[in-house]
C-alpha cells in the first residue's frame, strides 16, 4: 500500500506517467500490492524515489558495460587525473577537480580503474544521484568523495551501507549474496554485493549481470575443499534515505528567476520625416 500525506494512493493516477515495463511502474506495483505501507509526505517525494531507483538501475547497467575491472584492494587502481589512490586501496577525490567529472570519468574511462564489488555499488549510487540532481547540485552536495567499500563518511549516503530487513525487495535495492564456505585463499569471494535489476537479474561487479542461481553458482565455485554450505541471498537489503536526499535537493536546486515582461518603447520617427518637419 502507498500512502501520500496519510491518504491511500491509487497508482493508476500515474499510469500515464510511467510505461508498464518501466522500473518506476514495477516499483509502484510492488509497493501498492505490499502489506507494508509505503508512506510519503508528497507525491513529489514518491516520484523522486522512483526516479532515483530508475537511475540506480541505469547506473548499474552502465557500469557493467564500462571497462571497469575487478580488483581486490591490494591491486585497486584509479585515474590520477581525478582520484588519489589511498594506501588501503580506496579512491579519494582530488581537490582540484569537479566531483561530477570524476564520477563520469569512471564510466567513460573504466579501463583506468579497478576495484571490488562494494566500492562499485557506491560508484553506482553517486552516478545515479549525478543524473537525478544534475551537475550543479551534485557538486554542491558532494564536494569531497572517498570511495572505499562501505566506509561512507558522507551523511547523505550512509544508509546504503546499513542493510535492514525490509518487507519487499525493490528494484534499485542493494542486496548481498553471502558465501560462508569461501576458500580462504580467495576471500574476495566471501560474497557479492548486487543491485536488484528487473527480470529477476542482479548486477554484481566482478560477476556481471546474472540470475540469483548463476551468482550463487559462481560463488559456490570458489568454496574451500569439502564445503557443505551453499552461497545464498541474505534477507536484508540497503537503500538510500530517499527523503533526506529529496530534502537536500530541494534546499540546493537552482532557483529559476521569474519571467520578466518586456515593455516596448515606441519606435522613433524616421530621420528623413523629422528633417522635413
Amino acid at each position, binding site marked *: 500500500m502507498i500512502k501520500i500525506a496519510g491518504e491511500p494512493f491509487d497508482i493508476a493516477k500515474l499510469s500515464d506517467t510511467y510505461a508498464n515495463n518501466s522500473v518506476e511502474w514495477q516499483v509502484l506495483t510492488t509497493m501498492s500490492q505490499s502489506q507494508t505501507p509505503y508512506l510519503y509526505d508528497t507525491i513529489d517525494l514518491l516520484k523522486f524515489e522512483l526516479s532515483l531507483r530508475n537511475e540506480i538501475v541505469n547506473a548499474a547497467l552502465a557500469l557493467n558495460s564500462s571497462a571497469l575491472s575487478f580488483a*581486490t584492494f*591490494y591491486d585497486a587502481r584509479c585515474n590520477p587525473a581525478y582520484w588519489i589512490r589511498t594506501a588501503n586501496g580506496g579512491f579519494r577525490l582530488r581537490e582540484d577537480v569537479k566531483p561530477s567529472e570524476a564520477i563520469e570519468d569512471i564510466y567513460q574511462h573504466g579501463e583506468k580503474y579497478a576495484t571490488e564489488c562494494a566500492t562499485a555499488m557506491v560508484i553506482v549510487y553517486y552516478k545515479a544521484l549525478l543524473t537525478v540532481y544534475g551537475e550543479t547540485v551534485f557538486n554542491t552536495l558532494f564536494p569531497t568523495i572517498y570511495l572505499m*567499500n*562501505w566506509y561512507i563518511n558522507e551523511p547523505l549516503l550512509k544508509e546504503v551501507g546499513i542493510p535492514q530487513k525490509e518487507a519487499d525487495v525493490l528494484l534499485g535495492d542493494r542486496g548481498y549474496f553471502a558465501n*560462508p564456505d569461501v576458500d*580462504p585463499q580467495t*576471500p574476495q569471494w566471501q*560474497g557479492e554485493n548486487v543491485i536488484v535489476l528487473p527480470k529477476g537479474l542482479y548486477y554484481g561487479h566482478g560477476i556481471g549481470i546474472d540470475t540469483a542461481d548463476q551468482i550463487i553458482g559462481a560463488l559456490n565455485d570458489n568454496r*574451500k575443499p569439502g564445503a557443505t554450505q551453499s552461497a545464498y541471498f541474505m534477507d536484508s537489503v540497503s537503500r538510500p534515505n530517499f527523503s533526506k536526499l529529496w530534502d537536500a535537493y530541494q534546499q540546493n536546486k537552482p532557483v529559476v528567476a521569474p519571467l520578466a515582461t518586456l515593455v516596448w518603447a515606441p519606435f522613433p520617427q524616421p530621420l528623413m520625416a523629422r528633417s522635413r518637419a
Partner: protein
Amino acid sequence: MDPYRTGQHGPLDEVRIQDGLEACRSAFAEAGTADVQRAMDLLNDPQIAFPTLFLLLPNIDALGSVSKLNDRNAQAVRIVRQILHPKDTDQAENHLSAAQEAVRPVLLWMVQSGGEEHRLGNDYQKTLDIAISVLLVTYEEKSILGAVDQLIFARHKRGQPVHDLVWAFFRTHDPAALKLMAEHLQASEPEEAELACRLLQVDPAQAKDAARRQKAYTAYAHWLHENDPYVYFTGESLQYASRPTLCKVDLASKYIQKARASRGGETVLPASAKEQAHLEGFSSLGEEEQHVLSAFSQAMRAQDVAAWSTWIDAPVDAQIKTAKAGLGGAR
C-alpha cells in the same frame, strides 16, 4: 624446538631493518657478485625473516639460485608465487588448498616473522594476508590471533588494507577474537577505539574521550563474560556493511541455558522433547520478550537451579509474567 621460530634476526634482516630495503638489496647483490654460495648461505640462515626473503625474490631469480634455497625458503617462494600468480599455478600443486602439515610451519614462519614489516607494498600485504587467512581458517591456528589483532590496528593506523584481515580474524568464530578486539575499546588513541567500536557494534561516540572508552570496554567485557556460551558469529563482514554485526547472542540457547554447539551458522540445539516444546513457545514471542526471558532465565539459573527448573517448565505466558516482575519490566 620449532626450527622455523626465530627470536633473532639474520645478517640480511639487520641490514633491512637498520639501513632500509635498498641497502638490503644492494648488500645481497654484492654478496652474490662476490660469492653466490655465500649469498645463498645468508639467505638460508635459519634466523632470516620472511620479509627479507620476499624483498630479495627478484635478486634470487636474477642469480638463478631458486634451486639453492633450503626447504623452508623454497616452499615459501612457491606459496608467494601461487598467491601472486594464481593463474600460473597448477591446481595439482596447490599448496594452500587443504591442510598440509609440511606447509603449516612455513606459513607460521611467514606470519610470525613478517607482521612488523610494512614497507614492502601491496603484493607483500596480499601475501601475508592470504597466509593468515589460510592459517586461521584452514589450519585453525589460533596461536596467531594476538598477532593478527595487532596487525589489524597497526595497518589501520597507517591507512593500509585491513579488509581481509578482519574477515579472517572473525571467521575463526572464536570468542577469543572478540576479547582481543575489545581491549582496543580502551585504547589511548581515539582512532584505534573507533575501529574497535565499528567492529564490535559499540556506539562510536564512546570513543570520544578516555573515560567513555574505559566505560565502553568494561561494559563490553561484562556483556561478553555473561553471554560467551551463547555468542555466535553471523558471517557479516566489511564487504557487507559499514558496521557489520559480527556476532550475536543466540537468545534461544540462552533461554534454555544450553551453550551453543556451534559458533557459526544455524543453531542446532541438542534439545530434548521438553526443551523443544519450550523453544517453540519462545520462538513465537517478539524480540523484546525473547530478550527479557533469556536474561531472566540466565539470572535465575545462576541463583537457584531448582527454582529455574520449575520456572522453565511453566507455560511461556507465566514465564513472561514472572520475568517481567523479577526484572522490573526492563530487559
